[in-house]
């Protein structure tokens, strides 16, 4: 564990003095900073919070928000909520997988895109919805996808 990383984690931990909600909050904030939870980070948090590593691993794999693998530069998440489903989200995912040539949960070899799916963003009025990083886009269609991906630096071929 290098010192810089340890310092980042120490700083995050220092923000959560109360034990209420601490484990989730620390893991969430670290992931927001690093993009994923590395093995070393989890080990270090385990000693600092005095929580067995097995318990932390259990938490990190139970919740869908956490990733143990590094994600791509842009994370495209397709909403699979009921309204999106009714309005064609499965076709959207199919097309996206075809265009980026990777499956849901995977990252393109050049590290620029990761495809994920979500339970529901609660933006059902604009179904089907996708989210790129933090931005939500509504009324998506398979036909709109290529032009849309180009905005994020995707090159066809």
């Amino acid at each position, binding site marked *: 564990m290098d010192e810089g990383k340890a310092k980042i984690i120490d700083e995050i931990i220092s923000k959560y003095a109360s*034990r209420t909600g601490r484990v989730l909050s620390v893991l*969430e904030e670290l992931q927001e900073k690093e993009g994923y939870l590395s093995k070393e980070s989890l080990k270090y948090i385990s000693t600092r919070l005095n929580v067995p590593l097995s318990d932390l691993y259990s938490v990190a794999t*139970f*919740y869908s928000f956490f990733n143990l693998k590094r994600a791509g530069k842009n994370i495209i998440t397709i909403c699979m909520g*009921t309204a999106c489903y009714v*309005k064609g989200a499965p076709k959207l995912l199919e097309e996206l997988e075809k265009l980026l040539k990777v499956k849901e949960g995977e990252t393109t070899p050049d590290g620029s895109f990761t495809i994920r799916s979500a339970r529901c*963003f*609660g*933006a059902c009025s*604009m179904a089907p919805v996708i989210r790129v990083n933090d931005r939500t886009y509504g009324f998506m269609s398979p036909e709109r996808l290529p032009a849309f991906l180009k905005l994020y630096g995707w090159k066809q071929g």
Partner: protein
Amino acid sequence: MRVRSLDDLKAIAQRALEKLCGRRIRIAVGLATCGIATGAEEVYSAFLKGIESLKRDILLTKVGCIGYCREEPIVNVVIPGKALLLLSRVRPEDASEILKNLIDGDVPREKIVCRVKEWDHLLEKIHYGDGFTDVSLYEDTPFFKHQRKIVLRNAGIINPEDIEEYIAVGGYRSLYKALTEMTPEMVIEEVKRSGLRGRGGAGFPTGLKWEITAKSESDERYIICNADEGDPGAYMNRNEMESDPHSLIEGMIIGGYAIGAKEGIIYVRAEYPLAISRLQIAIEQSRRYGLLGENIFGTDFSFDIRIVKGAGAFVCGEETAMIASIEGETGRPRPRPPFPAEKGLWGKPTNINNVETWCNIPVIVYKGGEWFSKIGTKNNTGTKVFSLVGEVQRVGLVEVPLGTSLKRIVYDIGNGCPDGLKVKAVQIGGPSGGCIPEGLLDIPVDYESLKEVGSIMGSGGMVVMSERTSMVETAAFFVSFTSEESCGKCAPCREGLKQMLNILNKILMGKGSPSDLELLKELSETIKTTSLCGLGQTAPNPVLTTIKYFKEEYEELIKRYD
């Protein structure tokens, strides 16, 4: 500034009223998640640029969402002394034209949805004025006509990031009343009298729940707001937090006082970044104004709120799983009893209510339980917010008195399916709910009637499905959701749902046999009766209701390949 008295509140209200309907033109852009996703931020920037170049004293501000999601981006404008106008589908390129008109005291007609002469915030009324008599009134507009706003009384009208605007429409006056004129027992009594039932879905009487927690022997108690809105197709709570976070906060402080808790926790899902940020802003403002923290209103009552972000596990909407999650464990439910009211967070008595339940509290305390109990029906008082989505024309968030018929919501408010399609079913209650066929849409929306037809109230998702939706596929979709979200603790849910999904997929692939339907029903009954928590106990509902009401679709699939 610290607020210490009713006079302090009134002084702030007076000042902030000037922002809502003062001497300046006010342009308010609807900036909740739905608005932003359709370009409302660009609309806001366009107005900002336009106002700067005009060098006019015009107030540009942001508001939450008024619920008419299909018409986003929505902007409301107020010309001093005239009616508030709701404008729909505003594009950045419309800004300069609208500004030009506003300065001349006018608004382009083609953008207007309706006008509001007076808005009832329930604790305060705001009179905007007349004018634009050729434009239809809010109360005559089909989408709004049958609605009654209690929970969403401020949504889309006030700036959610400005505590003073909340105070201007009567905010924190209920808290003042509770802390200075009522004992905790009186507050609980008032909530009991209102008849309010938990809006998270189960419908347990809120006042009774509070009383049990308050009476549990302990030196410490907690209250929790369940904002882990996990039902796909439901976004009422997201909008309530994004549009009017102080309503929730005030409700929780009053709850803390009544129950005897010093700390409240809002457990909100990580998928709602904007709601989280607005809650954080609101909490900080409340602290700065002395409405959260030590000695609120100079009394000896102290209370604070912290936010805990969920990390994407549907089962955490279940009370005991949520508590486990807050304690830093995997979100797996614990057997009840003991109920959280006796032994909850860190083993202390804990009261958990949904966002919407908390948002009703300030109104009940101020207007009285008696007033509230007259809205809705006898055992189902008050209103409920539903997200009316799927294949329906006027998509949006609607708040109606309980007991309103489904027909009214789907047809009168929602205007039925688009493209001339017929409504086939309405799915209510999230993945644990049921599919109600068109023929039964006469039923009133209340906890008992929905249960009778095999569904549940749930948190308020209402997904309309047209004749082109396959009900067997829909059932499989929900079971794949619940089986994936099963925490794995108890076998009926973990293994049973998996087997159920296998059978459904087999039927969909044309390999089903007639005995599969009986098997599905038998499996459903077992899962319902033997699962540990609500997730498993209700997960078979979509299968049971689709077999009950759309059996021919199953039989058709089985027969076709027989």
